[in-house]
């Protein structure tokens, strides 16, 4: 721990810290471009010069390149240093077009800040500037190469950190060009990070182009709701419109970056089809009328059929506060028919996952620092994209990454792959609990055994599993395997991918309560007459669409509280609009059991861009602001229970009622979140999965999540539409050859749910005998839901 003096202040920093970081700890910001905490130092921009007065090296040095040493004396603003920096910034600015008024970076531009900080105010250079042709980089990123100052942050992010191979640096010297070989969309699912890392306006958010300046935006710390990882984000809004999302730093979870689903999935908030008013039937009513209708109906049903005739369903999209009050309200109504997930496998899987010992649960930071990661039935890019990036960082440090999956799992780096069909994953997991040495594993048990041995001898191993493929039994087996592979000094941690941003919260609150399948049986048998859905979409999320549709149609009352035009909303007798994540405050518990709160970014309302029809804002005046009816679901629930909407009091109540949520009321939205205090108990009886019989001439149909188009909210985002693939089916080359099918051609997929026409993709890395389709909402594949037992299917030429 060297102690040094910077600008007459003493600081002690960990060994290996550079002077730039050490100064930062004192609150001294040394101007810089190329250094980035996640990317490291390269000493390329020459801006972070300081004068070292005493120490192993003396004179003007780049502070990002010199490690802090004992007894160093550093001056960050001696006259010589200031003159040096002023010159550096002047030549960095030589070719810059000075187009700040029309540049989207203006106001959040490091180059602007550093030019001012460097003291360069008057341009002396009058020669010609180098100019470039820009490229079309696809729907997400705008390119303006003339603004470039050659700091290389983009290449280091795109190639080194994110593993992309289609974007890089071309040319040399004055001709340096950051771009692609040809025009075309950037292929990396993390390309959006270029916007955040570029210190000037070369790469800007195309979906936010010419919309706002930073200082006009409403921003607040928030959490990304598009998968179970809970990455930290900062959404920005203006004119009642959510205009963008950027990454926030949380070193325990996402680090500095986010994926493109998270960055560009924000558009659901502004969706023109979003229902914004309470509805009875399809008639617009006031909140008072709507709530009165709901309460009258519930009272009537309660008197006629008893409180047990009312079912309540929340979801993994709902906040902890909403889930808690859903349960409270059920209790006060006298009903025990309450659950928090419409998908029974995901529900059970999350319940098992939430029972893992907390000191064994891996955060994304643990994954980045692991030396061995074994992924069983987990497809990071599809189910939790930032996990793929975390795995890449581990691999860059030399970690071994092993993937066992029936799907052609794509990762942004090389890894060890084992194509294992879904039904055989259980055998692999059994092997994982029994360490054994085998150089050339002949069977799945032996492969499991050798992996188990490797996990045992690794320093910081992580075992990763997905609930969709493993199911509750598989997750349980995985947790047991992790236990068997743990040494006291280096435990085998686990990371389980769940269905949604708050699956963990639902799993904690559900205790041993019923699953949605039991509610569904109640509806089918006529015991349950009313279903109240809080940000839940059972029609889309329950795996058997025919069955759920029939059950819903038997209800006397279907009341839906939601922020998006879901399938269930279309069927609702009563509808109440809720706020989106960005429009309210709340808490989500991510897949490792980390409670994280988010703050309100904007108030719900119809975007001016929409209410004004794209023209000047309306010139007539009314008392009310259009589209402001949505209320936080927890607020509406509170109102139904006769409470006032006090979030602080509600959080204290949750803490008091349940020791697992200790510290909830102290959470800071800007902080790193807090792990829950105690895991839940293991669910008692797990229902064994029933495998569908597949005839020898049939294929088994596996439905899986995909990066864009599977998750509900992001799939509604207009900015992501271009990235959502056309419906396709994947086959192993063997099967394609046997069936005489060709890549890229139309095929007919015959399933028990009907025939579908899809484009064929041939994939070498998947298991034979299986047809894999992505879940794509709003397409022909809509009724196929991941996480169910594979169906038998046939494929032929269309």
């Amino acid at each position, binding site marked *: 721990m060297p102690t040094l003096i910077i600008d007459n202040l003493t600081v002690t920093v960990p060994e290996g810290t550079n002077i730039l970081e050490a100064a930062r700890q004192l609150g001294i910001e040394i101007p810089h471009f190329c250094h980035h905490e996640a990317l490291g130092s390269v000493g390329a921009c020459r801006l972070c010069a300081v004068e070292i007065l005493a120490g192993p090296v003396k004179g003007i040095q780049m502070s990002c390149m010199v490690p802090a040493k004992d007894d160093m004396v550093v001056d960050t603003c001696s006259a010589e240093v200031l003159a040096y920096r002023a010159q550096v910034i002047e030549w960095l600015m030589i070719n810059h077009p000075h187009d700040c008024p029309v540049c989207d970076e203006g106001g959040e531009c490091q180059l602007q800040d550093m030019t001012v900080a460097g003291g360069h105010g008057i341009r002396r250079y009058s020669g010609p500037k180098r100019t470039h042709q820009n490229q079309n980089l696809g729907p997400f990123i705008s390119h303006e190469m003339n603004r470039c100052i050659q700091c290389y942050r983009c290449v280091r992010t795109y190639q080194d950190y994110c593993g992309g*191979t*289609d*974007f*890089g*640096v*071309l*040319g*040399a*010297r004055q*001709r340096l*060009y950051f771009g*692609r*070989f*040809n025009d075309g969309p950037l292929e990396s699912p993390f390309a959006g990070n270029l916007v955040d890392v570029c210190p000037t306006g070369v790469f800007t958010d195309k979906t936010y182009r010419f919309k706002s300046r930073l200082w006009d935006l409403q921003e607040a710390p928030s959490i990304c709701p598009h998968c179970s990882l809970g990455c930290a984000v900062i959404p920005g809004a203006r004119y009642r419109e959510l205009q963008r999302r950027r990454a926030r730093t949380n070193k325990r979870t996402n680090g500095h970056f986010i994926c493109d689903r998270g960055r560009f999935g924000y558009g659901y908030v502004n969706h023109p089809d979003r229902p914004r008013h309470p509805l009875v039937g399809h008639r617009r009513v006031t909140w008072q009328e709507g709530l009165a209708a709901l309460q009258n109906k519930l009272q009537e049903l309660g008197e006629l059929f008893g409180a047990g005739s009312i079912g309540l369903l929340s979801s993994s999209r709902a906040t902890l506060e909403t889930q808690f009050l859903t349960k409270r309200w059920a209790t006060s109504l006298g009903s025990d028919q309450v659950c928090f997930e419409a998908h029974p496998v995901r529900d059970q899987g999350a319940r098992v996952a939430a029972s893992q010992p907390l000191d064994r649960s891996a955060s994304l930071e643990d994954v980045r620092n692991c030396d061995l990661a074994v992924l069983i039935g987990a497809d990071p890019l599809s189910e939790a994209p930032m996990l793929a990036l975390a795995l890449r960082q581990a691999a860059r440090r030399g970690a071994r990454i092993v993937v066992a999956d029936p799907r052609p799992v794509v990762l942004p780096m090389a890894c060890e792959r084992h194509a294992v069909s879904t039904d055989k994953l259980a055998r692999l997991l059994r092997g994982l609990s029994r360490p054994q040495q085998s150089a050339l594993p002949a069977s799945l048990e032996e492969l499991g055994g050798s992996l188990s041995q490797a996990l045992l001898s690794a320093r910081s191993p992580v075992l990763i599993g997905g609930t969709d493929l493993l199911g509750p039994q598989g997750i349980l087996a995985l947790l047991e395997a992790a236990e068997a592979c743990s040494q006291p000094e280096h435990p085998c941690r686990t990371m389980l991918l769940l269905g949604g941003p708050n699956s963990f919260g639902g799993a904690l609150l559900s205790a041993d309560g019923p699953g949605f399948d039991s509610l569904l049986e109640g509806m089918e048998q006529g015991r349950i007459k009313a279903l109240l859905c809080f940000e839940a979409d059972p029609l889309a999320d329950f795996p058997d669409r025919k069955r759920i549709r029939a059950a819903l149609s038997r209800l006397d009352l279907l009341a839906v509280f939601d922020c998006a035009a879901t399938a269930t909303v279309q069927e609702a007798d009563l509808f109440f609009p809720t706020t989106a994540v960005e429009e309210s405050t709340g808490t989500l518990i991510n897949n490792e059991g980390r409670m994280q709160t988010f703050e309100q970014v904007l108030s719900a309302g119809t975007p001016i861009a929409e209410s004004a029809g794209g023209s000047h804002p309306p010139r007539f005046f009314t008392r009310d602001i259009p589209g402001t009816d949505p209320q936080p679901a927890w607020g509406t629930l509170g109102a139904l229970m006769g409470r006032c909407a006090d979030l602080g009091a509600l959080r204290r109540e949750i803490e008091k009622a349940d020791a697992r949520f200790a510290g909830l009321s102290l959470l800071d939205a800007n902080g790193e979140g807090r792990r829950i205090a105690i895991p839940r108990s293991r669910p008692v009886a797990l229902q064994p999965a029933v495998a569908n019989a597949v005839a020898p001439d049939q294929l088994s149909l596996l439905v899986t999540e995909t990066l864009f188009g599977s998750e509900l909210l992001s799939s509604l985002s207009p900015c992501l539409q271009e990235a959502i693939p056309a419906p396709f089916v994947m086959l192993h080359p063997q099967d394609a050859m046997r069936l005489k099918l060709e890549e890229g051609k139309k095929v007919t997929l015959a399933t028990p749910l009907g025939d579908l026409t899809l484009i064929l993709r041939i994939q070498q890395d998947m298991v034979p005998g299986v047809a894999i389709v992505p879940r794509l909402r709003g397409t022909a594949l809509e009724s196929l839901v991941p996480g169910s037992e594979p169906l038998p299917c046939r494929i032929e030429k269309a």
Partner: protein
Amino acid sequence: MAMLLSEKQITQLKRRVKETPHPREMILDVLHAIQDANGWISEEGVELAAIILGLSPLQVEEVATFYDKLYRRPVGRKVIHICDSICCWSRGSETLMLRLQQLLGIAPGETTADGMFTLLPTCCLGACAEAPAVRIGKTLYGNVAPEQLEAILDSERAEGQL
């Protein structure tokens, strides 16, 4: 695309790539093979190199555009590289450049009408001890005086027409 290199050359290069632990080491060899066969490296040339090397076209292009002796545009039969870096500049490379433009009737970056010479400035030929230096085709000329240029061009042209 296959026309850029013979099937035999492609097979040979692919074998050498396979034997190298890091295929990137072979980028220059593959690009040189394509340039030797075609005089320059076209877009298709970069794509062919990418296929041979198992890399993305961008990864090949990064190297192809870095070196100024790899030509990404059509050039004459012989490329004249004239050094404009500090040593050569201080010993009269500017005069050489002007004289060459006069003699050839072209500006830097252009090719003579007969397709013989392309004139390019370069940042270094590694011949600082013999400044000013000029490279024509693969021949390096050191300590060049402006009055020697005409004879040098004549002999290079004669050789090029053989």
